[in-house]
């Protein structure tokens, strides 16, 4: 029905992560998970190496800061360790990790009392470019989009990060966020339009 729909059990296999990691086939990670549940530290380390980049990338895009993303990723894996008994080894671990990542980032934001969204007017386009006289480089545009992400509401940002950056299907995002698919789709289209408009406005202000 939908172009990008994926079955949840295939999630671990078909995820388009930020960088090619180790071959985290589902069976392998399930075995590692079972061993970790039995108290095998090496198996937990295996899980850590398997998922750390995805968790870190998600946290980075949700929080907008690498340092905070490190804190969040650390907390996510420590929660995984503490709650290993709650994880079903027969199901892919990644959706669980994404859910915890979103929650941890939410908690972190709340703890540090950040605003949910930064108003567009507060973003200084001059700070986004290192080359004010030259053309807009791709890297600068990406920085604009990254800044645009921080202008979204928390739920819009989570939806669009999971859907467009992490490449999950709408159904999977809905499952992770505990919302309906319709709600997720609404957040996604709103977020996409906002990002597009934000980038356009920044470019206009800069020119």
């Amino acid at each position, binding site marked *: 029905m939908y172009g990008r729909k994926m079955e949840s059990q295939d999630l671990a296999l078909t995820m388009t992560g930020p960088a090619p990691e180790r071959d985290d086939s589902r069976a392998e990670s399930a075995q590692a998970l079972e061993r970790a549940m039995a108290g095998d530290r090496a198996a937990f380390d295996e899980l850590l190496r398997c998922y750390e980049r995805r968790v870190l990338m998600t946290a980075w895009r949700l929080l907008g800061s690498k340092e905070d993303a*490190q804190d969040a990723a*650390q907390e996510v894996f420590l929660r995984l360790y*503490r709650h290993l008994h709650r994880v079903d080894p027969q199901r892919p671990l990644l959706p669980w990790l994404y859910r915890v990542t979103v929650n941890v980032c939410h908690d972190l934001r709340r703890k540090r009392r950040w605003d949910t969204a930064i108003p567009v007017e507060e973003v200084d386009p001059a700070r986004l470019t290192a080359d004010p006289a030259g053309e807009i480089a791709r890297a600068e545009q990406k920085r604009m989009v990254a800044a645009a992400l921080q202008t979204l509401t928390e739920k819009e940002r989570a939806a669009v990060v999971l859907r*467009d950056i992490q490449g999950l299907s709408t159904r999977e995002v809905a499952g992770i966020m505990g919302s309906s698919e319709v709600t997720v789709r609404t957040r996604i289209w709103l977020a996409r339009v906002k990002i*597009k408009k934000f980038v*356009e406005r920044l470019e206009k202000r800069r020119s």
Partner: protein
Amino acid sequence: MNWPDFERLIALDVEGDLPEPQGRAVAEHLRACNSCQQFAESLKISQALLKELGQEPLDEPMVQEVRRRVRNGLASAMPQRVFPGWRLAWGAGLIAALVLAVLTLRHHSREEATQVVAEKSTPASAPLPSASKIENGDSKIGARSAKSVPAARHSSINPREGMRPASILPAPSVAGTLKRPRAAPPGEFSSGSLRASAEAQHLQPLTVKLITDNPNVVIYWLVD
């Protein structure tokens, strides 16, 4: 369809989030509408940039730092083990607490019922100046009643006049069972006999009519 609808549809269609029929309709519309085409094009550009954010390599030191922190944290973060019988133990404890609470409540309500009966049996004597004269010698009840009724409430009654229950009208079936004690002089009656009667009626509503020596003062006591 108006512009916001198209904006929504295009924003979803650009990543294939629309069902097939709607996607086709959007594609047809885009062929005919220039402004929508432009909108879709710029949306595709921002979406491409957004996706590239996910492809950006993470610094290796950053990843290693997280790994190091997690490994250090594992020492202090003990995994929470599930004890096989903990649910059962909690359940049993909960049930025991519930049973205890019910028993306590029942006991408490019984005590209260006894008190109510005692209080029902004494009110007629409480406001009377002659309340101290209790025939059955139930000094406990007499004392409680005398304490619980404020004196100001009966200030209009001349204590010297005294009063007596003229009629006690319980539920019709037992109306005749309550009588003024024969031996008691006017203004005095036996609280003990009243109490016994009230108990006999199983706490049915009572209407107590008290007539004082003053013909202008008649008191009705409605006891629920």
